[in-house]
C-alpha cells in the first residue's frame, strides 16, 4: 500500500505566542513547564507518522490528548504551528485559501461527533451541501446525494428534516454527506461516540461494509479502545499531544510502548475485543469441491498432512462442509461422491462473533470450527488451541516478544500456502 498521508514533525501550539513556545518545545521542555512560562498550550507535539492508502487509521487517546486537534490539522480547520502534512506528496500546509477550499471540497471530507447537520434544510440537501458549495448544478447534486443516501440505507428519508431522525440515522446522514463528493480521504472525529452502544457497533459494521465496497483512507478519532480494535487497521495512540505508538492493534496489544498504552489495554476483555475472524487460521486442509474430485484424493490429502478432518470448499470459496477420515473411507467403500462424505450438522461461526461467544461451540465440536461469513464464504477455522492461545494472550502477561514467541508454536500445522493446490491435482 502507498503512503497516502505523511505527517512530519507536526506541532500545534495554542496561545498568545506560539513561536516562543515552539522554541522551548524543541529544546525539550515539557508541556506543563511551557504553559507556566509562556501561557501557551501544546496541543500536538512533534508528530510524525504515515497513513497508508485505503486503511482505517485510528487515532486514540484520552480527552485532551490532542487527537481532535490532530485530525483538524489534516483539513486545516486548525492551522499547524510547524511541520508538514503531505497528501499524495503535496504539502497541504502551504495551500492558499482557494487551494484549501478545493482540498476540502474534493479530497477530504469530515464526519462530526455532534453530526453538525443543517437543521433548516432537508436530509437530501444536507447530503448535497458539499456539492452545492462546490457549485454543482441542482439536478446533478441531488442525484449524487440520493446515491450517497442509498449507500447508507437512508434513501427513504431523503425528504425528512434532520430533527425528525434518530441519532444513528442523523449520523448516517453525516456519513452520506461526507461520501457524497466521493473523497479519497474521510476524517471521522469521534463519529460514533455520541451514539448508544448498539447503534455504535451497527455504524462500525456499516463503515467496514462501505470500506469493503470502496477503499478510502479513513482517519478515525476515538477514545474507545473496543472501537479502535474493531475497525482499525492501524492505531496511533496519543498522550499529552505526543504520538506514543503507532501499529496494528495486535502489535500494540502485544507490545505496548509505555505504561500509558498498557493501561489502555488493561481493562480490555480480550474475549470481547477479538473476533473469530481475528484468530481464524487458514492452515487447515481444505478440499476443493469439484465433480471429478472423489473421496480418494481427499483421503490422500488428509493422510499427507496427518489430519483427521478436512474442510470442503465450493465455487467462490463457498463453505460446503467438513469431511473426516472415517466418513471419507465410508464413502470410498460405497463408491459415493465427496458430498456423501460430509459430516452432518457442522456448527459454524460468523467472522464477527466475539471470542466469548465461541467457547461453547469450539469446546463441543470434535473438529476445528469453520468460520463462515454471512455470504457463506469460508474464512478459516478456529481450533481449541488457537482459541485458548488467544484468550491466554492477555496484555499484562505479554510484555516481551520472547514470551509471545514461546507461546505460538503450539500448533504444529502445515503452513501457508494451504494445501488447496495439492488437492486439485
Amino acid at each position, binding site marked *: 500500500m502507498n503512503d497516502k498521508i505523511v505527517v512530519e514533525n507536526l506541532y500545534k501550539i495554542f496561545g498568545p505566542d506560539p513561536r516562543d513556545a515552539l522554541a522551548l518545545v524543541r529544546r525539550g521542555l515539557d508541556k506543563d513547564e511551557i504553559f507556566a512560562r509562556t501561557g501557551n498550550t501544546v496541543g500536538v507535539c512533534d508528530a510524525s507518522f504515515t497513513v497508508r492508502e485505503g486503511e482505517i487509521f485510528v487515532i486514540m487517546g484520552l480527552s485532551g490528548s490532542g487527537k481532535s486537534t490532530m485530525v483538524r490539522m489534516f483539513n486545516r480547520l486548525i492551522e499547524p504551528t510547524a511541520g508538514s502534512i503531505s497528501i499524495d506528496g503535496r504539502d497541504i500546509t502551504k495551500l492558499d485559501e482557494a487551494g484549501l*477550499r478545493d482540498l476540502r471540497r474534493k479530497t477530504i471530507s469530515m464526519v462530526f461527533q455532534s453530526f453538525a447537520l443543517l437543521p433548516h434544510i432537508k436530509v437530501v440537501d444536507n447530503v448535497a451541501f458539499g456539492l452545492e458549495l462546490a457549485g454543482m448544478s441542482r439536478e446533478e447534486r441531488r442525484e449524487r446525494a440520493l446515491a450517497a443516501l442509498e449507500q447508507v440505507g437512508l434513501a427513504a428519508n431523503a425528504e425528512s428534516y434532520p430533527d425528525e431522525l434518530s441519532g444513528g440515522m442523523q449520523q448516517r446522514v453525516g456519513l452520506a454527506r461526507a461520501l457524497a463528493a466521493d473523497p479519497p480521504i474521510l476524517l471521522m472525529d469521534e463519529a460514533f461516540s455520541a451514539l448508544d452502544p448498539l447503534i455504535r457497533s451497527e455504524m462500525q459494521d456499516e463503515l467496514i461494509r462501505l470500506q469493503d465496497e470502496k477503499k478510502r483512507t479513513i482517519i478515525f478519532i476515538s477514545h474507545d479502545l473496543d472501537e479502535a480494535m474493531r475497525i482499525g487497521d492501524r492505531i496511533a495512540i496519543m498522550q499529552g499531544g505526543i504520538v506514543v505508538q503507532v501499529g496494528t492493534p495486535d502489535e500494540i496489544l502485544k507490545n505496548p510502548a509505555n505504561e500509558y498504552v498498557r493501561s489502555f489495554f488493561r481493562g480490555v476483555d480480550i474475549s470481547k475485543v477479538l473476533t473469530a475472524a481475528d484468530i481464524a487460521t487458514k492452515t487447515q486442509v481444505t478440499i476443493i469441491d469439484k465433480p471429478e474430485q472423489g473421496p480418494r484424493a481427499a483421503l490422500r490429502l488428509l493422510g499427507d498432512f496427518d489430519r483427521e478432518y478436512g474442510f470442503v470448499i465450493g465455487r467462490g470459496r463457498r463453505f460446503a462442509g467438513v469431511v473426516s477420515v472415517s466418513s471419507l473411507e465410508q464413502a470410498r467403500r460405497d463408491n459415493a461422491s465427496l458430498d456423501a462424505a460430509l459430516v452432518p450438522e457442522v456448527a459454524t461461526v460468523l467472522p464477527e462473533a466475539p471470542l466469548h461467544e465461541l467457547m461453547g461451540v469450539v469446546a463441543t465440536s470434535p473438529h476445528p470450527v469453520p468460520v463462515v461469513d454471512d455470504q457463506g464464504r469460508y474464512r478459516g477455522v478456529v481450533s481449541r488451541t488457537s482459541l485458548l492461545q488467544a484468550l491466554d494472550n492477555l496484555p499484562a502477561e505479554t510484555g516481551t516478544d520472547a514470551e509471545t514467541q514461546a507461546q505460538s508454536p503450539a500448533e504444529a500445522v502445515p503452513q501457508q500456502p494451504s494445501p488447496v493446490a495439492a488437492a486439485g491435482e
Partner: protein
Amino acid sequence: MQTLSFNPLYPFETLEIPFDDWVEVAFDWIAGARPVFQAIRRPIDWVLEGITDLLLFLPPGLMIALLALVAWQIVGGRLALGTALSLFFVGLIGAYEQSMVTLALVLTAVFFCAVIGVPLGILAARSDRFETGLRPVLDTMQTTPAFVYLVPIVVLFGIGNVPGVIVTIIFAVAPLIRLTNLGIRQVPKDVIEAANAFGASGRQLLFKVQLPLATKTIMAGVNQSLMLALSMVVIASMISVGGLGQMVLRGIGRLDMGLAVIGGIGIVVLAIVLDRMTQALASSERERGGRRFVERGPIGLVRGLSAGRTASAAAAATQRRG
C-alpha cells in the same frame, strides 16, 4: 466685583464647565454640513412617498381587502378577518387616511432599519472589536430620550414626515442590530465548522448557513423595530409628522378626548396586525404544517383552482378524444 475663593466642600460654586456652550458650538459646526443631511433625506423621501402613494392610491374598500388578503397569506384566515374588521372600524371612526399615512411612515422606517441594521449586525457578529465599539452607541440610541435628539434633527433636517422617519429609525434600529448580531453568533459552532470543513467560502458561510439559521432571531428583531417605530409615532408628530400621532397630539393639545382616543385606537390596531404578521414570518414553514408559502392562503387557493381547471380541462379533452 466679588470673587469667591475655592471651597473644596462646595466645589461647584466656583468650578463650572460650559458644556452646553460647547455642544452649541459643535452643533453649529455640524450644521454647516447641511447639504450632506439634505442628501440623506432624499432616499427616505423617495421610499416614503412611494409607499404613501401606494397606500392612498387604492380606494379604502379595495385597500382593506388587499391588506386582509396579505394577512391571510402570511398568517391565516382569522387574522385576515380581524384585519378587515378592525381597519373597517378605524375607517368608520374617521381615521382611515391617517392610518395609512402612519403605516407608510412605519414601514419606511422599518425598511431603512433593515437596510442599516442587518448589515451592521452581520459586521458586529464577525468582529468582536466592532461589536465592542458598537454596543455603547446602541445603548445611547435606545436610552436617550427622543425629545433630546428631536431638536437637532429639526435643525439638520427640518420638520415634516422625513425627519420623523429619521427620528424613528434612530430609535428603532438598535434591537434589529442587536438581534441580528445575536442570531448569527448563536449559530452552533459545530455547524460552522462543518460548513468550513466542506469548503464553504466566507460568503457561502454567511448566506447558506449563518443567515438562514439566524432568520428567526432577525425576524424577532424586525418585529421589535416595528413595535418601537409605532411607539414613536406620537413623539414624531411633534415635529409635524402627519398621521395617527398627529391626531393624538392634537387631541391632547385641545383636551379633545375623542380625537386622542381615535388616534390611539388606530395605533393599537396597526400594532396588533403588524405584530402578528412579522411574528408569523419569523416562524418557519415547517412549524406551520410544512406547506410552502405558495401553497397556502389566497395564492395557494388560486393556484389550486387554476391547477384544478387545467386538470378538468385535460380530463375534458381526454373525454372528447375518447
